[in-house]
């Protein structure tokens, strides 16, 4: 009589585990609670979202040194930070690219780039690629806008592109991230909470 029970329990555990893996595989969706992380900033210090207590949320942006599309958005990321950090939403940039596949994305190169472009925000190295996987980032640049709830949880409020014209900042018609931030700051629901854009595939370890 006991064996079927054990078998069922065993199957249940497997189902739970696999569903957890499936969820991980797809990453976050809007409305999910985002996990905090602890990653090394270009200044050598470890940064976690929890340590930035004054922030109401974060413009978490997976980006890198080498992708031309990521580079097209560097200045716009700086502008976003300058406009919204004071309002409680700083940019937190994360480079998830594998250094072996993309030597231009090493920690030293990140330090150089941050200096050249005078990044006013944290530029973190996701060396194990675990955070990019957990969040479900696929390309650079890829934004996850997080907002802190009264219960001190970080909710995903927007996932996607920074704006609707990567090639020409002058021709941008929709500033997706800014619009979402303005919604959040006004206490309104985010009207467009998900967009897509062309970008470079994250250089995953083990992929050619």
């Amino acid at each position, binding site marked *: 009589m006991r064996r079927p029970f054990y078998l069922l329990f065993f199957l249940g555990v497997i189902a739970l585990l696999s569903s957890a893996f499936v969820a991980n595989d797809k990453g976050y969706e809007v409305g999910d609670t985002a996990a905090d992380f602890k990653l090394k900033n270009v200044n050598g210090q470890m940064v976690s979202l929890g340590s930035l207590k004054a922030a109401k949320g974060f413009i978490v942006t997976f980006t890198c040194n080498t992708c*031309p599309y990521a580079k097209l958005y560097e200045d716009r990321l700086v502008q976003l930070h300058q406009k919204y950090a004071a309002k409680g939403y700083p940019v937190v940039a994360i480079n998830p690219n594998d250094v072996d596949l993309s030597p231009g994305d090493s920690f030293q190169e990140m330090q150089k780039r941050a200096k050249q472009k005078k990044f006013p925000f944290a530029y973190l190295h996701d060396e194990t690629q675990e955070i990019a996987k957990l969040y479900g980032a*696929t*390309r650079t640049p*890829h934004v996850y806008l997080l907002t802190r709830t009264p219960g001190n949880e970080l909710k995903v409020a927007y996932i*996607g*592109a920074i704006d*609707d*014209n*990567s*090639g020409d900042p002058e*021709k941008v018609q929709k500033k*997706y991230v800014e619009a979402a931030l303005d919604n959040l700051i006004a206490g309104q629901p985010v009207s467009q909470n998900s*967009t*897509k*854009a*062309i*970008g*470079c*595939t*994250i*250089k*995953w370890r083990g*992929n*050619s």
Partner: protein
Amino acid sequence: MEIRRKVASILLFFCSLAAGTALAQNQQVPAVKLAHLQKYLNSTSDTTYIINFWATWCKPCVEELPHFEALNQQYAQQPVKVVLVSIDFVKDLQKKVEPFVARRKLKSTVFLLDEPDQNYLVNAVDPEWSGAIPATIFVNGAQKQRFLVEKPMTPEMLQEYLDQKFKLNQ
């Protein structure tokens, strides 16, 4: 006399320059809208289209292009067609894309997809696509088969798709 010779040599110089540019740009790449691509995506014929999204600035894309070219040649006698969709900016068409296509002597169908609103574009091409490149869609309308692969492809991976999903083993 002196001036005439100078004029002649200058003329000759410009002629050779023009000829040189003509040679270098012999490969015309059309800039098209989404509707043109959708003819392939929504085709109902029993042709297997291998639609690869790439750009001159995308290193892994450029590295995998030869595999697609080889496939195009390998299946030349079969209803298999490689379509290389450049998503470079249209302003780079003559400056970068056409010289690249000429230099690499690309034989597959190539065009540049000129749709600046990428949120619209990416969703319209495939709701499953995140927008990362390289990305490849295998589609056969008659067989009602369609697969999106959002990562770099090796020749082995390409062959596996054609063998197992489309029974196109050679």
